[in-house]
């Protein structure tokens, strides 16, 4: 899989960033690359990259995550190790950014280094079945807020439109027009359309750049 050295996943709250980031990191690793994944979420203390710690570590992926993630306190702290991603450019890195502009503020402190190296992609994860990104206009609004908060620009779009367990192949197909419109309005390509692996066979050949997702399980 062709990939820049650093891949950032940002987007609206609950759009599926963490799930996609974990799957993306596993895919990079399966290609034999040295990979680190960093959890930069300072908004949501519950659904975290750390929930997949076992799977990631077993795959040989370096997990950078706050010791407070998925614990009994809500401390929006960033681990110091995140700097190892921007300082060490021999390793591929996936960064999971917190939702909305509030989550993207945390990315801002690494923006200068990332821009200087200029070997990154920043993906906007979109889901038209989320009530606050139901149409192109509201999606563009969220994108602009995120870009302003982290001082970085998106380079591509990931269409993750789904309504959870009830998602049908048709729901995904129905979202393609919306994703195209977001793409046209921003001039950004749709790099991936991500679907629950159960829908993959159904949609294979019908959607470009389709990527199956194995859904993360929440650990208690």
């Amino acid at each position: 899989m062709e990939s820049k050295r650093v891949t950032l996943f940002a987007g609206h709250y609950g759009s599926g960033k963490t799930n996609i980031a974990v799957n993306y990191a596993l895919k990079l690793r399966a290609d034999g690359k040295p990979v680190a994944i960093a959890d930069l979420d300072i908004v949501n203390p519950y659904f975290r990259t750390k929930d997949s710690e076992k799977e990631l570590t077993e795959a040989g992926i370096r997990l950078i995550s706050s010791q407070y993630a998925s614990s009994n306190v809500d401390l929006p702290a960033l681990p110091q190790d995140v700097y190892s991603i921007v300082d060490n450019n021999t390793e591929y890195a996936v960064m999971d950014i917190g939702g909305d502009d509030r989550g993207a503020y945390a990315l801002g402190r690494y923006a200068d280094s990332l821009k200087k190296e200029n070997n990154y992609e920043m993906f906007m994860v979109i889901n038209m079945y989320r009530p606050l990104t139901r149409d192109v206009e509201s999606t563009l609004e969220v994108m602009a807020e995120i870009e302003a908060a982290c001082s970085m620009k998106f380079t591509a779009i990931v269409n993750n439109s789904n309504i959870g367990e009830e998602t049908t192949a048709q729901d995904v197909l129905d979202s393609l027009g919306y994703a195209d419109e977001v793409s046209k309005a921003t001039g950004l390509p749709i790099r991936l359309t991500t679907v629950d692996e159960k829908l993959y066979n159904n949609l294979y050949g019908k959607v470009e750049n389709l990527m199956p997702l194995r859904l993360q399980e929440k650990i208690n």
Partner: protein
Amino acid sequence: MSEKVLMKGNEAIAEAAIQAGCHHYFGYPITPQTEVAAYMAKRMPKIGGTFLQAESEVSAINMVIGVASTGKRVMTSSSSPGVSLKAEGISYLAGCDLPAVVVNVQRGGPGLGGIQPSQSDYFQSTKGGGHGDYRNIVLAPSSVQEMASLTVKAFDLADKYSMVSMILADGTMGQMMEPVSLDVGEVTKYEKPWALTGTKCEREHNIVNSLYLKPEELEIKNFERYEKYKAIEENEVMYEEYLMDDAEVCVVAFGITSRVAKNAINEARANGVKVGMIRPITVWPFPKKVLEAAADKCKAFICVEMSMGQMIEDVELAIRCKKPVYLCNRVGGMIPTPEEVLAKINEVNENGGAF
């Protein structure tokens, strides 16, 4: 295209409140309910409503009293420690007979506790929490869809009886994402002749107050209020019965634990154990009658709770201690597993109970 959207429980509460005509929200952030406030902050300016992050929970609930006095629909939300802070204001709302919706997305306690889910504010919400003789209507959703539909219901009941309705959720319900339909149907409008809307020199002043100088008057007011509560206990009880027709063991659980219990019950049924569930949807008014009727058919009850055993007291009262009631619980932010509930069902089925 699906008409449903994918929402967090907290977001569903916020959007449903707006759909129900609530254009005034006052809150203060606390995990795990912050998404209610965050959602309101985004949506309210777009519909010309009011979102205000108060300087504290105490301040927020007093703002609620202000808007409620004008007859407008109003809501606040918090999580356990924050609801404790709101308790004084909730008592004043009760004393003033004002309608409002208060949401509690519970977390572990007591004290600061932790941010993981809990059901240990059952006493606080159903027995008072604040001072004085009063009740709140308390609705306990068990899905994101119910987070939406019961919020609409909460506004309706608050207006109908001029009192506080609470949504008693927990961290899991607030954080989980599920498909939800936001079609809330027709919203009933209630006349509020008592509201402070300005006399325009056309009527006597309305007064909203909870202070009574004469104890005789305060006594009458309390008696009147309890007549109203009696009518609510008669008319507004909501519950779900699950596989109760031939059940010999009756599980009682609300909210997230009812979902865990359902999985365990299905498993037990597959092994031939006759077990069912009564899920209170209103935890006040409590579904006493259906439980008492079940006590004549079942040999034992099991309360599945994320508390040290709070609802279990209401179950024992409702069934007048006719049958033994066992507790299956986890606390501190831990959720009982279906395996734990199943083990309890099997244990009670084999060794417990009495016909």
